[in-house]
């Protein structure tokens, strides 16, 4: 199947008009030596019907969370995506447009992004946000780039931060010239590090990689005492219940925005959220939309502060991001408008209630305990199992349950269990029974 509309006559007439003898002539400037003289070794030229059938067959070989009851989290969550979100974000005028370089033709996307920035600020109790970043992990990278100034180059990271974030920092750090330094915690919670005058930022995830609530105020206090920036990795869906980063003392807050109306998509497309204080506005990465007026005094929206960006600053730019995750930000905007303040609170309360119910049911099983019994958590908790977490997880697949995410680095017996508002009491009970059964199986 092809989309170029040209008929043979079209091609002939167009070539005639431009005085070329053949299509090949158009490629004369390619040196013969580098021309490809054979067809590409790619099957197809298939019909839509065939390629979709092929993809449907591949999809059918996956066991999606429509089939498996999903207790997996660890940074991506099976939250409910209301129909309205993609019915609107999927409108083709949004979906098939490019970055709004011509604002008069792009007020739809621009206004939606202005609303997105506003909502992120409302969520975080911070002052400025942007039009989205790639995802949570790369948003943290940008927060670090924003924080590292002059002599302050070191990057301290609580060891209760998700290793995927730390690995991503490490990769980008090799180019930027830093190595993330982990500071030790205790009992699954961070403990305030000592912060010298060479430290750029202190990074805390709250709720952390175990789902546990951190003593954020004290950690951020330590950062500030040392003159460093406090950077929080947050869960956007927790902020109807939990105190927002801005009030905990975070200077920069970043998050994986997937829980806001975006599908699991095997890891992407998601979106990175970032918010900071107004003093940092000129160090913010990425697109920023601003409100202004047109020649008739009518309110409108434009990309602003572009002097920050790579296409102007070039080798002096703080960030190279160009294409971002605008459509996902648009989905998040619709989702947050659908939620409203009350809905945000309710979804958070449901996560808290059902995850705690699940923790109680599961730890009621002999040999199963919380990895950190006394720590408060939001929607995720780490279990210590009498057997290999991966083994148990695999066994429960046959019962139609995706039991969670093993955390081998924390112990081969540690399983991270996430419970969103979608998990019913019945599903949680079934999980508990299946777990009890599989542990018995194993031991007998």
């Amino acid at each position, binding site marked *: 199947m092809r989309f170029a509309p040209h008929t043979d006559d079209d091609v002939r007439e167009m070539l005639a008009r431009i005085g070329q003898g053949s299509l090949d002539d158009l490629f004369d400037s390619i040196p013969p030596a580098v021309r*490809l003289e054979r067809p590409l070794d790619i099957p197809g030229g298939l019909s839509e019907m065939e390629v979709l059938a092929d993809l449907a067959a591949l999809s059918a070989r996956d066991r*999606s969370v429509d089939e498996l009851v999903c207790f997996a989290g660890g940074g991506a969550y099976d939250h409910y995506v209301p129909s309205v979100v993609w019915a609107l974000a999927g409108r083709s005028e949004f979906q098939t447009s490019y970055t709004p370089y011509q604002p*008069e033709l792009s007020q*739809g996307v621009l206004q939606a992004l*202005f609303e997105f920035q506003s909502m992120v600020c409302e969520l975080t109790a911070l002052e400025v946000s942007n039009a989205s970043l790639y995802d949570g992990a790369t948003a943290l990278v940008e927060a670090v780039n924003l924080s590292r100034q002059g002599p302050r180059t070191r990057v301290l990271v609580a060891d209760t931060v998700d290793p995927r974030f730390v690995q991503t920092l490490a990769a980008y750090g090799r180019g930027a010239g830093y190595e993330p330094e982990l500071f030790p915690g205790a009992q699954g919670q961070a403990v305030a590090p000592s912060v010298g005058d060479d430290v750029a930022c202190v990074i805390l995830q709250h709720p952390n990689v175990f789902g546990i609530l951190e003593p954020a105020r004290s950690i951020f206090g330590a950062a500030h005492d040392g003159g460093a920036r406090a950077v929080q990795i947050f869960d956007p869906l927790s902020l*109807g219940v939990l105190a927002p980063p801005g009030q905990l003392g975070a200077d920069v807050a970043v998050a994986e925005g997937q829980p806001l109306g975006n599908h699991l998509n095997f890891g992407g497309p998601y979106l990175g959220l970032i918010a900071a204080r107004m003093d940092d506005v000129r160090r913010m990465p990425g697109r920023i939309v601003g409100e202004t007026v047109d020649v008739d005094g009518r309110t409108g929206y434009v990309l602003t502060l572009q002097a920050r960006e790579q296409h102007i600053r070039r080798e002096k730019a703080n960030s190279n991001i*160009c294409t971002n995750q*605008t459509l996902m930000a648009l989905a998040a905007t619709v989702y947050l408008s659908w939620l409203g303040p009350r809905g945000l609170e309710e979804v958070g309360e449901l996560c808290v209630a059902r995850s705690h119910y699940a923790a109680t049911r599961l730890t009621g099983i002999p040999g199963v305990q919380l990895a950190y019994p006394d720590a408060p958590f939001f929607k995720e908790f780490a279990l210590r199992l009498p057997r290999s977490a991966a083994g148990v997880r695999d066994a429960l697949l046959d019962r139609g349950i995706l039991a969670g995410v093993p955390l081998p680095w924390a112990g081969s017996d540690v399983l991270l269990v996430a419970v969103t508002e979608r998990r019913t009491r019945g599903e949680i009970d079934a999980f508990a029974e299946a777990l009890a059964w599989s542990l018995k199986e194993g031991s007998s």
Partner: protein
Amino acid sequence: MSASGGEAPTPPSTGAPVGAPVRRQGPPVQQGTIADQSRPGRRASAFPEPDVAATQLPAEHLRADPPGLPEVAERDLVVHYTRLSQMNYGVDTGVYPLGSCSMKYNPKSSEEAAALPGFRRLHPLQPDRTTQGVLEMLWRLEHALCEITGMARATLQPPAGACGELTGLLVMRAYHAERGSEKTKVVIPDAAHGTNPASVRLAGFQAVAVPSDDRGLVDVRALESIVDDEVAGLMLTNPNTLGLFERDIEEIAGIVKAVDGLVYYDGANLNAILGRCRPGDMGFDIVHINTHKTFATPHGGGGPGAGPVGVVDALVPYLPVPRVERDDATGVFHLEHDAPSSIGRMHGFHGNVGVLVRAYLYVFLHGSDGLREVSERAVLNANYLANLLQESYPLAYPDGAPMHEFVATAKRLRDQHGIRATDVAKRLIDLGYHPSTVYFPLVVEESMMVEPTETETVETLDALAAALRQVAEEAVSDPDLLRQAPVTTPVRRLDEARAARHLKLRW
């Protein structure tokens, strides 16, 4: 929004657009943002009645007052964002000749593909045995992209081109580091896209610009003089950002390789050469692809994209993890996390898989012949349009043979009539078309970078050319018409200076 927000400005009678946009059917302009419609107590969301006891978290962790999210009914939400969508121009609205962006038709079937439950409803941390389908899809796509670019292996992790650039440059860095060499510089053409120098910096290198010569191509002699042992590599877009093919590519690559440098291919313009020639055969070692350009994955008003990076054999060890590997004995796929020389992780998970599915669909819909046809038709359309416009908007490099896009200039209009490229663009909007890229590349004054793509018909190109020629005539006969434009849009020219001066970045 001012009360007069929605008033459609009466077009100056002289300026009654020839083919003015049809007005959409619509409600009165709503005032302001979704927040302005908020009413205390109104809501759209609903959740199940709690079926378990509520739990109180420690007080010190709780939020005191709720965030100021809008309180609106679902019905009003739908009207609001439907209306915003209709204030937006997309590929489905009409021709979108934005140079360097390959804004071609986005197949509707790609939505169906991405919505398949085995892709859309899959958790990134599920065990491999439950994700064989998506892993095979990614594996097949990786190998197709390698065949298209002439590379050995590729990573699909980078979520966009710029991230692909940085990924490639970090691979370059790791490669040199492992060989103990202390290289510090990366050469880029002066006409390069801004992400190139920015990525070079973020990779810890120093960007060195090589000038273009009067052909609009890399000045090879200048390059020779620049390149020394400190040079880790060169980044090049080919065809370059002027839409011209770097005919000296072999010599250029040779110069860089002579000092042990690596040659990086910025794939933004890959659409021009699909099936005709391959970066790998030109001597490139690293290639990034923008699937949202070449492979028609919808750009969503700014993103998402995907920026797969392919490399030659010698660089495979440095690619990011995890990688999709296949056990040839069993045909079983798995995610490999363990690769000692890897630069590590460039994305929190596995990249924009939902975008990659769409790229897969596009590649296999076309197949080898279809992909070659894409570049043929793209180049044909660009040359045809350039030809129709040459009188009114001369090419920046008249002697160059444009490939899939061309850079024209409004310099003459500016010098003789005080009309700038932006005025041409705004007037074109009133005639119902999305303008080309303007003011990029920076090396050309009043540049208009036009990329029609292969999916436009000759009739569309004729009509677009007629409109642009009309604008050139109006620039002489009625320049004010251009300076006043646009008048048919929801808002007219916006005060960008004011936006930057009086920052209003949130409600």
